[in-house]
């Protein structure tokens, strides 16, 4: 296979420096700074309206920041219009040119730069090959399925050898099964090419599946940036804990030896920075047993147990905990048992 991608440059590739974007009175981005190393798969994750797409569009040059800079490999991109930036975008709607065939769509970014004919042909062939589109080369976009269109959009962006590939919710139009498949392919493609990918999504599963790092956004700010397991296992805030997966949030007071919840005292491995606040624990981290655990054990009663096939979901009283465990056929509502909240699994939230 002919390789188009260059080896990743070392060190930092893209830096977003204190970017602010206001639309009239509305502040879409309130000073975002972020470093993205070359070859990283970064995901901007957040609900709609959190500013993730605006940030992506600012990197693409489709939106002008009110303040701040976008610097790529030492070069300030901010004054450059979209058509002069070495970045390409896969749009949410794919935005394929409906009057051009798959081949012509893929060649568009090469021809618009008046690239040499043979080089255009070589790269188009490469794009068709890497995304398995050879069979569809002469078709028009409306003759393709959603998944095929998405591959054309990817190929059309990738053949330009962008320094950074921007993906704006590219999977939102695909059905769940295909989406899972495409996520794996996308991750593989990124690693194979060694390119920097920035993906925008509101789907936390997708973010976890593909990313090197996740930048969780909230109301125009970065809430937490880290690897998927950092953000999942060590959320810093209630928002982060609740946005990624399910979490039990326990409100209580700081106590000399740990934490005092309404249902009892819990030991923590870190002293909370507040007098009153929250600790979090993931449902799959709570352990259920017949015997009293050595630490952080609670006597609980099963309020409801729902069989979900691969796992079982259990709600406990009186502490109102949600637990996810391996299927446990004997577990029934009303049953009394012990729940352990392991110290290492209790996360102290900053806010």
């Amino acid at each position: 296979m002919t390789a188009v991608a260059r080896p990743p440059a070392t060190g930092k590739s893209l830096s977003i420096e204190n970017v602010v974007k206001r639309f009239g009175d509305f502040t879409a981005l309130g000073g975002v700074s972020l470093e993205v190393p070359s070859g990283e798969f970064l995901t901007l994750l957040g609900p709609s309206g959190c500013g993730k797409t605006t940030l992506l569009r600012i990197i693409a040059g489709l939106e002008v920041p009110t303040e701040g800079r976008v610097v790529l490999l030492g070069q300030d991109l901010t004054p450059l219009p979209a058509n002069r930036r070495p970045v390409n975008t896969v749009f949410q709607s794919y935005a394929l040119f409906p009057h051009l065939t798959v081949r012509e769509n893929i060649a568009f970014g090469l021809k618009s730069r008046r690239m040499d004919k043979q080089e255009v042909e070589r790269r188009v062939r490469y794009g068709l090959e890497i995304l398995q589109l050879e069979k569809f080369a002469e078709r028009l976009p409306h003759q393709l399925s959603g998944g095929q269109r998405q591959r054309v959009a990817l190929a059309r962006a990738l053949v330009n050898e962008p320094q950074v590939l921007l993906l704006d919710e590219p999977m939102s139009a695909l059905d769940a099964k295909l989406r899972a498949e495409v996520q794996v392919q996308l991750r593989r493609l990124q690693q194979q090419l060694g390119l920097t990918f920035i993906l925008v999504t509101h789907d936390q599963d997708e973010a976890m599946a593909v990313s090197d790092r996740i930048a969780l956004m909230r109301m125009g700010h970065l809430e937490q940036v880290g690897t998927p397991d950092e953000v999942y296992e060590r959320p810093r805030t209630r928002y982060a804990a609740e946005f990624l997966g399910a979490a039990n949030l326990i409100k209580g007071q700081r106590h000399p030896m740990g934490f005092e919840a309404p249902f009892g005292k819990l030991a923590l491995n870190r002293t909370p920075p507040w007098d009153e606040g929250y600790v979090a624990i993931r449902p799959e981290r709570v352990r259920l047993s017949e015997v009293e655990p050595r630490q952080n054990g609670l006597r609980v009663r099963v309020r409801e147990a729902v069989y979900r096939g691969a796992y079982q979901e259990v709600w406990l009283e009186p502490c109102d905990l949600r637990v996810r465990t391996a299927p446990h056929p004997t577990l029934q509502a009303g049953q009394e048992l012990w729940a352990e909240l392991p110290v290492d699994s209790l996360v102290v939230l900053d806010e």
Partner: protein
Amino acid sequence: MRLNPLIGITAIATLAFLYLPMLAVAVLSFNKTRYGLTWSGFTWDWYGRLFSNPEILEAARNTFLLAALSTLVATVLGTLFAIALERYPWPRKSQGFLENILYLPVVTPDIIFAVALVVAFGAFRMVSSLFEPGLFTMILGHVTFQIAFVALTVRSRLKSLGHDLDEAARDLYASYGYYVRRVLLPLLMPGIVAGAMLAFTLSLDDFVISFFTAGPTSQTLPLLIYASVRRGVTPEIHALSTLIFLLTVLLVLASERLTRR
């Protein structure tokens, strides 16, 4: 619910009401007698005479020249106007104003426009003899009412395209010119052609504006028909009317097909 057969009958009666007069004209254009409404045999004669009558040929030439030139100008201006209206970042208020003003020529009675043109050309004549009544003033007159129709058709096409493709083209290194040539115009083409056909038809059939702006040497077919009818309706006029009607129908059908795509 059973549909009342009266509804169907009403529809057919309405169609008959609309098209019977035209059908009568078409039938009479094949009638052998010159005068009267009695049928006395089939003939192509009147069509033959049509094409050997220098006055009619001259009028036909004028009509098509006028329609072609005015359509050309109106199509270019109307398309540019539609693009500017739809794509230029107008403040919300001026956009609404421009939209309304675009519709105005469509609903204003022709006669008002015609009178306004007469006044305007009269004033311009003091500056240049170009504005003497004739083909040039007729072209200007026709362009004024054609632009709105072209702009409206092109604009509805533009609206359906959205902004995605324009951003995708920019993202893919296209200059504005490259985008217009390779993306915007090819995609707008059905709308532009449909608009042009509509404009052509309107020019072909126009009487009022032509009547007020024509000069002695720029007689068009509708003007000729009007003048002839005052002298008495002849089968030649029937033949001519039938031809113009057929041409109009063809153009409208073609334009319909293009906009539907």
